[in-house]
């Protein structure tokens, strides 16, 4: 009962719309694993640049590949990159952030200065530098985007963890004889989890955008892999003949990012009772 009451009132619309869009993205990726109308990489030059029809819902591109199949298959890369890059960010970011919050002094300063240093580079520049060193490809793109996520999560973790540590129950836990590791897991993490979940959702959206940009530049997904960013790059060559080819991946990216941002906003309202009380 209390859960229904807690979730409904505010953030309702954006939470559910965001969840629906993200759900559609996940569904598309799941479906593409077992079925696509055509093999997404199958070239069919005689039927190139066909307009949308019953056979090809979104038409075909300049090599005759079925655009609907490519969009479906492209969602896999987006989700893969998002999930892994955000996981990297969370794993290292939370660990470093907690270490900084608990260690204080030189360790804290060092971690935060390093974070500032990495943070100062735009995400895309970090990614370009890394992929140009390590070579193009999805794996390196994921690493690059993950590395960008680490300082974002680390800064958030440290700031929110310091907030929790200044609360009296953190002092009470120390007065009860608990050590820093126990306090981190029992008191700090559960209390900062809402903020981390919201930020992870936002970073997921940023990761999808970054992957699209990298693939567009030829540093991400390599043929025969399909990615929305690569589709945009291909569409650019025939932009005047078939502008719709840029539209489909563009709309797919926009809806995914919009969905994740709405979901993040909705989750923040639903998970943060203080914010709700204020509005």
């Amino acid at each position, binding site marked *: 009962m209390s859960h229904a009451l807690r979730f409904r009132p505010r953030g309702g619309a954006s939470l559910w719309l965001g969840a629906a869009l993200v759900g559609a993205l996940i569904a598309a990726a799941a479906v593409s694993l077992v079925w696509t109308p055509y093999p997404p990489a199958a070239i069919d030059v005689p039927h190139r640049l066909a307009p949308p029809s019953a056979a090809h819902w979104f038409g075909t591109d300049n090599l005759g590949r079925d655009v609907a199949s490519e969009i479906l298959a492209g969602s896999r890369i987006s989700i893969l990159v998002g999930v892994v890059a955000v996981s990297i960010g969370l794993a290292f970011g939370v660990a470093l952030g907690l270490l900084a919050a608990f260690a*204080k*002094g030189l360790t804290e300063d060092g971690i935060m200065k390093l974070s500032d240093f990495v943070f100062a580079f735009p995400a895309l520049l970090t990614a370009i530098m890394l992929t140009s060193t390590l070579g193009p490809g999805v794996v390196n793109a994921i690493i690059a985007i993950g590395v960008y996520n680490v300082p974002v999560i680390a800064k958030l973790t440290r700031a929110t963890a310091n907030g929790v540590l200044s*609360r*009296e*129950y953190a*002092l*009470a*836990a*120390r*007065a*009860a*004889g*608990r*050590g820093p590791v*126990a306090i981190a897991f*029992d*008191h700090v993490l*559960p*209390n900062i989890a809402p903020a981390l979940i919201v930020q992870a959702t936002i970073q997921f959206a940023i990761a999808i955008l970054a992957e699209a940009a990298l693939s567009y530049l030829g540093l991400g997904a390599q043929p025969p892999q399909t990615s929305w960013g690569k589709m945009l790059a291909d569409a650019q060559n025939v932009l005047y003949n078939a502008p719709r080819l840029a539209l489909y991946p563009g709309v797919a990216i926009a809806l995914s990012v919009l969905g994740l941002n709405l979901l993040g906003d909705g989750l923040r309202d639903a998970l943060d009772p203080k914010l709700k009380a204020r509005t």
Partner: protein
Amino acid sequence: MLLEVAELAVDLPAPGGSQRVVDRTSFSLAEGESLGVVGESGSGKTMTALALMALTPDGARVSGSIRFEERELVGLGEEAMRQLRGDRIAMIFQEPMTALNPLHSVGAQVAEPLMLHRGLAKGDARRRAIELLERVRLAEPERAARSYPFALSGGERQRAMIAMAIGCSPRLVIADEPTTALDVTVQARILALIDGLRAESGMAILLVSHDLAVIAGHCDRVMVMYAGVIMESGPVDAVLRRPRNPYTLALLEARPRPGAPRGARLATIPGAPPAAPDHRAGCPFAGRCALTLDQCWTTPPPQVAFGANHMSRCHRAGDVGFVR
């Protein structure tokens, strides 16, 4: 002696050096004894309490000696200190609203020290937690154990905090303004509960408060702190009936009293406590004292003894009048 503190000093980092917030503080506490610490905000009473548990803020420097159960605590490692905290020395905090984690059930939080220090398994610790909640006279202890802090009232939460503190039968309980956040009737019941537990288990209590009435009713001895030093200490009756320090006298005269004429203004102490007292130069209370002499500004006041246990740190300790 259970606890013997000698020449305790706490320095906190401050812009341009450090600031001494507790200075030359010496006192002792026997098994089963109750010592009140009274003083206004910033007088160093909470910092003294935190120093006993080595929970002073980061960067604080503690010097002097704290002997607890024949063991020196100043300079004792964090690991050894952690074994004492919650087991031999426990603490009750001022704000029962924020001293319990909102995300864990009350029972789990009361059970925590038992699992940590007594090695109890989860189920046993839970059962023991319910017994403890019963011992602090929480109505429906089983329901309370399952509830989350938000579902309990302030008084109930403070009872839960006390249950958490006494779980491992500590020899010393530090209660830092345990009833300040509660209303007066609840305050009386919580203090009666603490008195009862002390009588049952023989634990010693260090009761930090700014309320003279609370100290008078629930402590054997009292020490009055001002600007980080003990101004006067002794048996509660002696100190409160026949204060030997102008600061104690001023505090007593600033109490609201029943039977005062209507519209009479409450007596106050003029001025404000020094922001950064220099303890080497004179008495920190000199600027607000009615009895100030020239030497009060230049020479730290001596400790003057009145009988065996009664001490006042004042140049004019002998001249302080009776309370009217």
